[in-house]
């Protein structure tokens, strides 16, 4: 089978505008993946499926990954004007001198949602080729092209990713929640998902339950009496 780099070259020859980059993998498994841009992903995926040599006709696994906003600390060398005492003929004097100083800077790398596809070939019996797509952010721009028209295998799995991660797959024939119920608001596999406050009285309350009870009571003061604004 072709290596990931060779596949990248083949894709760039077949779909000229597509930008493909190889994502390294630090694990001994050595399964490197190809990051596709959302615009050309459908064309690239069609090429991967229909190409004679690759013939990746079997989509095994589709999944989402949630990458949160990351605070990156960098050490940057900066040249600065620093005041310094210098010996001058008229005695000591303060002068500005250029000096390189190391500074730690913090900046926030915006988070994104990622869809990962594992492709195999039934015809040629090789694989996996891992492709991934990334959304622009985690909040409002979460569209990705659906690959269900190419591989039916993605139908339920993309629905699951939509349900649990909130990636909206454009072109999916039937994009609905699959595991959670209709009317459920959040996406429970996201890393910043907060469990609902579903406190229940337990006759043998132990440590964790008691903690939850305390938190619940703090959130809803005066549950026994109607809340102050409730009568209005």
């Amino acid at each position, binding site marked *: 089978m072709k290596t990931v780099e060779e596949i990248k070259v083949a894709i760039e020859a077949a779909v000229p505008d597509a930008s493909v980059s190889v994502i390294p993998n630090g694990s001994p498994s050595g399964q490197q993946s190809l990051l596709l841009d959302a615009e050309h992903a459908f064309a690239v995926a069609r090429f991967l499926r229909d190409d004679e040599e690759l013939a990746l006709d079997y989509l095994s696994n589709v999944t989402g990954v949630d990458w949160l906003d990351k605070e990156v600390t960098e050490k940057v060398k900066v040249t600065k004007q620093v005041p310094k005492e210098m010996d001058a003929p008229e005695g000591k004097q303060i002068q500005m001198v250029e000096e390189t100083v190391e500074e730690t800077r913090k900046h926030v790398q915006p988070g994104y949602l990622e869809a990962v596809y594992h492709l195999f070939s039934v015809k040629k019996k090789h694989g996996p080729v891992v492709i991934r797509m990334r959304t622009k952010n985690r909040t409002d721009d979460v569209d990705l092209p659906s690959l269900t028209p190419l591989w039916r*295998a993605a139908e339920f799995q993309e629905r699951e990713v939509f349900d649990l991660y909130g990636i909206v797959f454009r072109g999916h024939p039937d994009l609905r929640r699959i595991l959670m119920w209709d009317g459920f608001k959040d996406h429970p596999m996201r890393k910043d998902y907060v469990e609902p406050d579903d406190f229940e009285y337990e006759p043998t309350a132990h440590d964790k339950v008691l903690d939850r009870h305390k938190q619940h009571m703090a959130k809803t003061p005066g549950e026994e009496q109607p809340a102050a604004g409730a009568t209005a």
Partner: protein
Amino acid sequence: MSETATNSGMAVEKAPAIEPQLESWNRPPVIPTDGEGELLEVSMGPHHPSTHGVFRMDVALDGEKVVKLKPVFGYLHRNHEQIAESMGSYIGMMPYTDRLDYFCSMTNNWAYALAVEKLVGQAVPERAEYIRVILAELTRVQNHASAIGFLIQEMGASGTPLMYAFKMREKILDLFESLSGSRMMCNYMRFGGCRVDTSAAWLDAARTVVAGLPTFVDEYEALLTGNEILMARCQGVGVLRPELAVNAGISGPMLRASGVNYDIRKVDRYGIYDRFKFRVPLGDHGDIYDRYMVRVLEMRESIGILEQALKEVPGGPVMDPKAKIRGFKPKPGEAYGRIEAPKGELGFYLISTGGVEPYRYRVRPPSLINLTVLEDMCLGHNVADVVLIFGSVDIVLGEVDR
């Protein structure tokens, strides 16, 4: 996208741009109705006796003919993947994998162990590999026997064929119990080997059970294979074309019943499967009868593998002594490991960011993905056939909903 017409239709917030739709060969066909009267919408499940658990199908009927079928999932959803990502360790998830497909906990354990071993580059001692193969093939035999039993039960033969299967299955579960301490929730494999060693007495007991298996399969087949009712109900019903089966990611006996030669034991040669001689049974027509027949033949091949493996179990440790157990923190990276579980391709996808628990843990459930084509297979058939076609897929809801 407008509000969908089905029961659980949920509008997607954004209107999607115009995109290519499914090609004509890989989308469910449109079944013509006679145009008279209304379609009858029936909700089969979640407590229908044939649903193997809590599963629902929304079926639209024209007379007895099925014209639309939408499966509804999630009644057993417990966010298995979220549990793994807040577990605090990798090994802590091992007993939870038993609960995915509770008929085949040994193969679930193996798939998870294999994925983690790929992630960290862990080797497995030879004796452990042999024990894994023995346990996986025993699991396959009992799963296929029970799957056929359930299928026949849905045909109306309530009890008897299933109890035949369970009589044999109980012997295999006794072996699991004496080895791992539990009949069904085995929690037996570890990263880099197995939890406990087998005794010589256990191996002898296993040999005795395996020696009785060919007789069991012969007996089972004598009752069923040539049975006229079984042939009348199964042949030509629920046909799955091979090109659709591959496109829809179908795996396991269902894929091979459609005539596609793809067995992960042969393709990936994971573990030590390259040392055993076995054939991959293939179907011709892709109907229910072929799925039944492929399972019977796979049981026979599994028995062959068991006989070979039990003959040559080597000595040595069952756990790699260098395997890291405490402070198990894989390097940042990712791995996808998969095995040929009795129900199909069971895969685990793990992403590590260097922590004590996986950053991302994903189960590729064969049961869920094999249901993708349920609608395609059922359209145009009678309601009674839906029950059979559904039974021939062989699913477990613990794995579908996770």
